[in-house]
């Protein structure tokens, strides 16, 4: 067993002794020859050891049907001697071509996904199937998921190369819930929306709570759930001072007891008085169809804003009301 090693060992010994003596006496300015047997193969005819020559890149030895995920199993920098593709990158000089891959810094700077080819991803997924459990059979559509599990939690984990596995950005927790799935009546909903302010999106009816005030993710999660609970309970309660809600606090326009109602009543009464028709009372006036229509158009105009439909509706209703068809 030592025979395999012995001849090379013998070859090494005499050279090493002479060269070591040489290198200790040499001043640091001059380069002493390296006492390694590789230089014996790469010396020129003139006896002076030349620079070590590089091997041919190992792309030449690669088979066409090799197992690529084994060549790049993990995220690694781009190695031109390992990637058998004639890739070019870089801004070409005038009448030139982009630079080749050897020694190309641009290819090194960008992140490469040579370790995540579709074949590799398929293999990884196959291997990771053991860690997964089955999806519940009852949850086969999005609506059912939302129905059974109305609250959605988003968390993010971070992985980086370094001695520490902690990342302060990982503590953020985002909680999303649709208000339609919560059991809120009208007052509770309005109060909740007022309480949360910006966190409620009207178009999608989603309340988003994002917490990062605690140092740990689970603490933030607990805090988010606590906030949701508190909001829910508080919105069901009615405080004393809520009775003092003025018109300026209203979220949407309410016809009852509004100035528009008063105005139209006055107008109609005046019209009726001019026509000497004092039989109708307020409630009956309000109950007529024309006034109903007017009410609807005013409410839609105030709530939805000005657009073609609402304005034309208002015009029609006013005309009907004032008998101006």
């Amino acid at each position: 067993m030592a025979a395999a090693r012995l001849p090379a060992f013998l070859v090494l010994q005499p050279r090493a002794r002479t060269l070591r003596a040489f290198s200790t006496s040499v001043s640091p300015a001059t380069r002493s020859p390296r006492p390694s047997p590789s230089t014996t193969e790469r010396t020129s005819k003139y006896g002076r050891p030349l620079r070590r020559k590089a091997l041919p890149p190992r792309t030449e030895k690669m088979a066409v049907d090799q197992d690529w995920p084994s060549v790049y199993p993990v995220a690694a920098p781009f190695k031109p001697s390992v990637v058998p593709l004639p890739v070019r990158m870089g801004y070409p000089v005038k009448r030139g071509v982009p630079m080749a891959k050897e020694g190309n810094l641009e290819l090194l700077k960008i992140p490469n996904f040579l370790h995540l080819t579709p074949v590799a991803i398929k293999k990884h997924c196959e291997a990771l199937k053991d860690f997964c459990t089955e999806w519940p059979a009852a949850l086969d559509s999005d609506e059912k998921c939302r129905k059974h599990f109305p609250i959605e939690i988003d968390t993010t984990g971070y992985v980086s190369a370094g001695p520490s596995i902690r990342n302060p950005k990982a503590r953020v927790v985002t909680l999303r819930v649709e208000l339609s799935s919560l059991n809120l009546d009208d007052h509770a909903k309005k109060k909740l929306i007022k309480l949360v302010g910006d966190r409620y999106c009207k178009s999608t009816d989603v309340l988003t709570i994002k917490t990062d005030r605690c140092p740990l993710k689970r603490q933030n999660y607990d805090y988010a759930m606590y906030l949701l609970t508190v909001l829910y309970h508080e919105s069901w309660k009615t405080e004393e001072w809520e009775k003092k809600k003025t018109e300026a606090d209203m979220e949407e326009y309410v016809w009852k007891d509004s100035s528009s109602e008063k105005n139209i009543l006055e107008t109609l009464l005046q019209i009726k008085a001019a026509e000497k028709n004092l039989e109708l009372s307020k409630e009956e006036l309000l109950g007529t169809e024309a006034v109903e229509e007017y009410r609807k158009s005013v409410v839609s105009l105030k709530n939805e804003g000005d657009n073609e439909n609402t304005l034309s509706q208002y015009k029609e209703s006013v005309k009907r009301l004032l008998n101006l068809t």
Partner: protein
Amino acid sequence: MAAVHSARWLRVRRGLCLPLTGRRAAICGRAPSSRFYSGSAAVPEVEGAGATGTEEVVIPKKKTWDKVAVLQALASTVHRDATAAPYAFQDDPYLIPTSSMESHSFLLAKKSGENAAKFIINSYPKYFQKDIAEPHIPCFMPEYFEPQIEDISEAALQERIKLRKVKASVDMFDQLLQAGTTVSLETTNSLLDLLCYYGNQEPSTNYNFQQREQAEELEEATEGNNEKPQKAAGHELGVTWRAKNNAERIFALMPEKNAHSYCTMIRGMVKHRAPTQALNLYTELLNNRLRADVHTFNSLIEATAFVVNEKLEEKWNNILDLLKQMVAQNVKPNLQTFNTILKCLRRFHAIGKLPALQTLREMKAIGIEPSLATYHYIIQLFYQHENPSKGSSLIIYDIMNELMGKKFSPKDPDDDMFFQSAMRVCSSLRDLELAYQVHDLLNTGDNRKFIGPDHRRNFYYFKFFGLLCLMEQIDVTLKWYKDLIPSVFFPHSQTLIDLLQALDVANRLELIPQIWKDSKEYGHSFRRDLKEEILMLMARDRHPPEVAFADCAADIKSTYESQDARQTAPSWLASSLNCIAVLFLRAGRTQEAWKMLGLFRKHNKIPGNELLNEFMDSAEASGSPAQAIEIVKLAGAFSLPICESLTQRLMADFTLSQEQKEALGDLTALTSDSDSDSSSDSDNDVGKGK
């Protein structure tokens, strides 16, 4: 440092405290099931499934696994890259090592860098206090090697023992005794442990490295000579136990000794090669009616084998005695016991075979699983002197049948010698199937770890590949060649010669230029035997890829020349010159071929007969008589017997001018000292006549 974001969705599975009419979200908190990464599915809770309308949502229990399970699963999707160098090296064509010497020195360089860094960190610990690693990594922090407690006390002694400072702890012990304080039994025992382990010497920094090397050398030495070794080899290598050293002194000073003290002393003595004293101490132990533990018995078994001047049967009987005493003292043997017995039996050569099998049977009867070292000792015992004429034992087949498919874990320091000895046996038996079995065993599970250090791995693959070249079909051999070389081992020139001979047998000589190109990469450009083999194979018969062969020959010629320029000893051989010239001629490179003739003269080597004939043919083909005359001159200069037939041919086939004939005449006159007098005279007459 690339940061990768991974968003993870987690549906909350808690029931909110609201009445959800009719539906009930299944309750599943984070209750972990005991599911580790082993591939079997978790247990879902199946409640009354699927009544029409209202469906129960069953959430299966979450699986748990240990920290590296995911990484292991992903790692199982990749295999070894056959073109890559081992991962420890930088993957750059300029920085990959090209021979085993280089790879060894690169790894040593890397390790020495690490050691230098550790040295700096430990010398100036106050600059390396900042710890950014989370969770804490202890080996990144500086270590403290100096004892902190300065006063004379037992705690100080314990600290010095813990820091492995032999001399300091002995001094501290002496100081304690002088001061009059009694040292407790445990502390004294641990001091004895320290002294016996290191043999009363300070542990040096490459202590472990030296120990292993010396142990191996001792093994080889004892294998070489049969009975003499201990006295000669023992004292030069390693630490020996001197009488009246510190350990014995302290031992004698101890007021009370328990079994542990005796055991430590015995083990220390055996480790440092003082077997007789160890046995004496053992009898003292028995006289004090104390019991020894299993490790001590293992050492004693080794001691009985080491004792000189005893016959083998006596030694075996002593070992059996010890085993009986072990039973009497109710001490259970362990794996080390049996391995030690087998190791000692190895020295008994032929007599040891039967006891070895008995030991193995006993081991299995008790229920101790044999380790790879056990089988290694058995192989060594049965196949020690490779003498196929006597008929080898067939025990290797039984061993391999038993070991197939088993995965091993390291249990004995000699476990890594098994594969080497198994492959050696396969190679000597010339059995390829068995070699494949051994290789399969190497590749099951984690057994790859048992291949051992560099030289053992190289030996294993050297033998394996040699066997493949010898016995396997050429296509399969070439596949193994691409797979193993150079990513697993660097081939010896003998390996390449074997491969070339296999190519020869299979008539695939067109691959020779490729092999030559590869061998240049592995640093074999100056191996004379390899180059000669290549040239000889190429030049032997006519082969189609003549151009490629000629290129290869030119390459080899240039290596010869560069070697010549540096060394004074001539490296050319006549046969290689012959081959190169022939190859040039066949490829039609007549210019270079003619230059070769000059080289013949320069190095004073004799050209072969066929070569000269071929030169004549080519001169005829190109129709230049001057060249033909050159050849004849050369033949004449060397006084070759063929000169005469060449001259005749020259006369017959070529038309010569007058000066040429004159020159020819002189030449033949010079060489006419030999028996071809009359013929040359007649030639002259004929020439003059024309």
